[in-house]
């Protein structure tokens, strides 16, 4: 059962796009982080764009990047959205409104507070009526999303995996650590079509104590550990270097997802 990665998109500190990501991950020691570019919102009306929460902006940005890099239209592409904590900025505003008498919750903030709000905006912005699933497995959300995407992709059913997490607002910094904004998207399809950047094979099995795949550079390793979506960095590194290797993501007190990347010599 071979799955191919047809393209990817990324937005994080000092990583405005796939090209910058390629530069950073082919020479890890050169990466020093940096500012995060403001995400781009395309395809929404002025009203919808005004209401669109920050998390959904990241999703739209990296999702569009991955589609362009794969040369795909959005129609017919199933999306899997994975986020450890969803939109904590909206949660903070809603909980403040609920703690203040008289209670006046904003209808827009309420509907934006659902974990799948970004999935809703994705459909509205792209016009795609393909299925969208939004999930979480806390710090293991990238692996859970990747597994869901790998089991969703089928002949004639390409899938876009989008993972994202943002740092919490001030009131939640003691209870949820996310070091920097990071979002990533991978365009997956069944088989090995020409032009794809990597083939993957995978299995879920017992954790063998090898632990998760890590980054060499301390700055990149801190980013990987600081944001659940950045747990994808070893996969991005394999893609950027054309490196065939087996990567592992282990659940605490559970099994592990192992993915082998394959490149033609």
């Amino acid at each position, binding site marked *: 059962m071979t799955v191919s990665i047809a393209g990817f998109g990324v937005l994080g500190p000092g990583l405005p796009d796939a090209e910058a990501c390629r530069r950073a991950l082919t020479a890890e020691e050169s990466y020093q982080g940096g500012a995060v570019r403001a995400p781009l919102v395309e395809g929404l009306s002025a009203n919808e764009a005004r209401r669109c929460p920050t998390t959904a902006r990241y999703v739209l940005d990296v999702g569009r990047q991955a589609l362009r890099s794969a040369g795909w239209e959005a129609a017919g592409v199933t999306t899997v959205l994975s986020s*450890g*904590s969803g939109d904590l900025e909206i*949660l903070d505003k*809603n*909980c403040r409104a*609920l703690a203040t*008498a*008289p*209670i*006046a*919750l*904003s*209808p827009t903030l*309420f*509907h*934006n507070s*659902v*974990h*799948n709000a970004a*999935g*809703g*905006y*994705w*459909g*509205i912005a792209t*016009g*795609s*009526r*393909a*299925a*969208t*699933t*939004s*999930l*979480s*497995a*806390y710090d293991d*959300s990238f692996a*859970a999303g990747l*597994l*869901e995407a*790998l*089991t*969703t992709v*089928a002949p004639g059913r390409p899938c876009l995996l989008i993972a994202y997490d943002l740092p919490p607002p*001030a*009131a*939640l*910094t*003691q*209870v*949820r650590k996310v070091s920097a904004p990071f979002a990533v998207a991978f365009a997956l399809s069944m088989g090995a079509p020409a032009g794809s950047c990597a083939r993957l094979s995978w*299995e*879920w*099995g017992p954790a063998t104590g090898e632990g998760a795949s890590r980054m060499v550079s301390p700055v990149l390793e801190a980013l990987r550990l600081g944001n659940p979506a950045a747990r994808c960095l070893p996969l991005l590194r394999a893609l950027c270097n054309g490196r065939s290797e087996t990567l592992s993501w282990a*659940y605490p*007190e*559970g*099994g592990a*997802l192992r993915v082998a990347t394959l490149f033609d010599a």
Partner: protein
Amino acid sequence: MGIDIAVHRYTLTSAFGRGLAANRAGLTGGRSALSSYALADGFPCALGRVSGLEDVAIAERLARYDCRNNRLAELALETDGFKEAVAAVIRDVGAGRVGVVIGTSTSGIATTEAAYRSAAFARDGVLAADFPYRETHNVFSCADFVRRSLGAQGPALVVSTACSSSAKAFVAAARLVASGACRAVVVGGVDSLCDTTLYGFHSLGLLSRGHPRPFSAHRDGIGVGEAAGFALVGPPTLFGARGGLHLVGGGESSDAYHMTAPHPEALGAREAIGAALQDAGWAPEDVDYVHLHGTGTPHNDAAEDQGLARLGLAGVPAGSTKGAIGHTLGAAGVCGVAFVGLGMEACFMPGTANTEARDPTFHSDLLLAGRPGVIRRALVNTFGFGGSNCSLALEWRS
């Protein structure tokens, strides 16, 4: 994809009560278990509350997970021999091959709501470092609690797509089984009462003034309920050549239209229902019963009715249980599966409690009262905010 998944064991705890027997009695009795409630501004609404959660004990090792949502989960896991059935399967196939996929919309958010009202938060402006955000409020908390409570070590995740969450959890579980990643999956839905949903639906004008009346001309919104339901699923061969409830199709789609309003011609809903039929290999006339999403809001019910009519399903007996136990949001899908399962076992077609007459402009064959009848093949519809739609095809095998 052609799903073929056996439901080995299932359980449901809702406003009807704890376990399948209480829910069967509520369903066949045709009563509404909703109670009346007033919001802070005096708005009168209905709640589908589960009683007894105050008395649920959470194991010491999982004390940080203690919250209303996880208590509701634990109460359901401890019912109908569910935990024992999971333990037996774990012994058979190994803990690492048993996954957990749970649907929830708000998880244990009520814990954070309460913390924001506390004197400490007013004083400090931050939640203290020992606040159990991860174990109670985070959306994954519920699946994390369930896997730890059961000792399952396979893949675990929460699907959170508002009101379609636990229906989509069934389809995700089927994918995990079909791919070989899991031999069995504990799939479920858990959502509990909280201010975010009550005041949120009120802010959108979607809460019924009084009790909800799905598919009635006088419908004016939903009543919020809470529920926890679980199913232990796997390939039919895993459980021997047994009959009973099977998931044979799942259809998922997006409206790509609006965050809260359904597509006026129910395009997304039609695609989800159509995909479920196609996945199951059914024609419309093969369907014996439709468990409606039937929330009781003016637009949702109209869109669902139109969607069914356009797919040739207007003649199929259909019912909504949301006037009976409320709209349980992320748990709506597993409630539908359990009610259909109970109806199949009892040869009973559930009706639409609290609705006196169908909207005369509608086309569906709405059952007001439940009635005896054989259900071999049924659909369970769920449609959520963000335009997230999922329809399940269920089959009874003797």
